[in-house]
């Protein structure tokens, strides 16, 4: 059976979402091809008005464009940028980024949820980038988000799954695809996220700043596929702490006959 990744009404077979910022256009094409990615993000602020077509030239046919609202500091600005994305022909997908911290670029969950609600009602496929907080994730879901995109670590840091425990909670509790975004620095970390049950992984800096961009894109592809296969094949039970052969606490249940 084919392993399909669904976002709204759209179906994908690749679980790798590629960022397009931070590197040159001609490398993007090679990265998309080697990554086998079917979704690529695009910062509207980078693709200044009239420039979108130019960037599209570098993106292979059949790849879904995921515009983001970077540059928005609150819900109102995010909604305005989303409208602009639709106007310039970027389709109905929108990755919401509401950031009012220029130092760590941490998303503002409160504003993001507000924007998610407005944009979902307007028919967008809403993909909110967020700090992995369970209550906020429920708000995003109730607002009509198509998935949630919790960060693994502060963006650009390549530190991996610093928020692992909290992402696991979201995977366990939120019946939407959980896409780990930001902070993933190595293929092994992407693999780990997929083993945990993430629906997909998004990466940008890790690939953009690699010595060999296409090769790193391919390494991520393989790691994500390996992690997904491992998740689907239900990993064997691995005891984290030393197990004891005897049953020191429950052994008394076997002692009934002696009474």
């Amino acid at each position, binding site marked *: 059976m084919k392993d399909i990744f669904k976002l709204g009404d759209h179906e994908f077979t690749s679980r790798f979402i590629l960022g397009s*910022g*931070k*590197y*040159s*256009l001609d490398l993007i094409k090679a990265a998309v091809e080697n990554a086998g990615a079917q979704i690529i993000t695009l*910062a*509207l*602020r*980078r693709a*200044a*008005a009239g420039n979108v077509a130019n960037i599209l030239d570098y993106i292979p046919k059949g790849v879904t464009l995921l515009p983001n609202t970077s*540059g*928005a*500091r609150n819900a109102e*600005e995010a909604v*305005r*940028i989303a409208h*602009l994305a639709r106007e310039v022909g970027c389709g109905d997908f929108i990755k919401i980024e509401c*950031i*009012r*911290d*220029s*130092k*760590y*670029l941490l998303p503002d969950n409160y504003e993001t949820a507000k924007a998610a609600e407005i944009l979902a009602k307007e028919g967008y496929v809403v993909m909110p980038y967020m700090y992995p907080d369970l209550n906020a994730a429920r708000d995003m879901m109730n607002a009509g988000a198509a998935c949630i995109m919790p960060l693994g670590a502060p963006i*650009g*840091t*390549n530190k991996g799954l610093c928020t692992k425990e909290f992402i696991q909670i979201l995977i366990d509790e939120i019946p939407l695809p959980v896409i780990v975004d930001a902070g993933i620095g190595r293929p092994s970390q992407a693999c780990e996220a997929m083993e945990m049950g993430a629906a997909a992984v998004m990466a*940008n*800096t890790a690939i*953009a*700043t690699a010595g060999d961009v296409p090769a790193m894109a391919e390494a991520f592809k393989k790691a994500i596929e390996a992690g997904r296969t491992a998740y689907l094949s239900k990993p064997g039970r691995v005891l984290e702490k030393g197990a004891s052969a005897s049953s020191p606490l429950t052994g008394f249940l076997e002692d009934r006959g002696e009474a």
Partner: protein
Amino acid sequence: MKYLPDMEVINSDMLERVVSEMEGYDYSEFTAEDVKAALRADVLSPRGFQALLSPAAEPFIEELAQRAQAETRKHFGNSVMMFTPVYIANYCENYCIYCGFNCHNKIRRAKLNEEEIEREFIEIAKTGLQEVLILTGESRKMSDVKYIGEACRIARKYFNVIGVEVYPMNSDEYRYLHECGADYVTVFQETYNSDKYETLHLEGHKRIFPYRFYAQERAVMGGMRGVGFAALLGLDDFRKDAFATGYHAYLLQQKYPHAEIAVSCPRLRPIINNESINPKDVHEKQLLQVICAYRLFLPFASITISTRECERFRDNIIKIAATKISGGVSVGIGGHGENGEEKGDEQFDISDGRSVQEVYEAIERAGMQPVMSDYIYV
């Protein structure tokens, strides 16, 4: 120094905090061990920033550059933003003894009218640039807020990103410029040593040191998205001034977390035959040290490299720490016209006269990605 009657006073203690930290900074007390500890730190503290600016860090310049490069990559990838300054007037009421625009310097003064400004922008837009920095001399009388606002409105027709580098204003005036389309404000404090400042700025509004200091804060209060800081390194003790610049930006970002921070790194060049004499001279090595220290202390900040520096330095610093570079620069008034004839004289001599295309190609040759705009006006 007392504020003049029309100058807005805001409630802030940032000036006292910056000056007291700067005055307490004794860079001679830092050792190689302090520098190594700072280089190992994941997040650089103000104290670590002081260590990296000290003479003890000079032998570690290669390590410093490598750390700075890694940090720049994390935050900016391979992107290098491009822009050009546009001088629309050079009338000035200030007497700053080091500046070519000062009111006693006998130069050709000029001010472009709206038509001429538009013509300049049309010429610049042909180069593919999407970002301009509008500059005037500091004369409220000759270049009033409305005049600057009009220039911003015209610029909006041709460019995506508009910054201003003009005299400090009140927050409501910044708000007006923001409504006209500007979103970034740069003000150079020149030096953070107020005693030295007084001896360099002999006449004009600029003499009011605290009013200038609080310009960035008023700009953010007025709705500007980003603010730029700089000391003119070499006017006074460059290590202390560099510390104060970075610390000023750091405190502002803490108070206004959404504000985008930018730092420029202009320097007075040492006099050629005087190199060994003045320990406060800023040679290329010290400039590199300062820029790398800025990067590590403010990893998220945009760092601009001026055409005061030569092609070799600029092409290399964008690989290490600078993230913004100008091209096709004219520092005279009206230098972008068809035949490039200027109506008014230049502020200073530039060392890198390359065109936008030449700088663009140099960025690509460095393995980096030239970016014309990474901004959206909302």
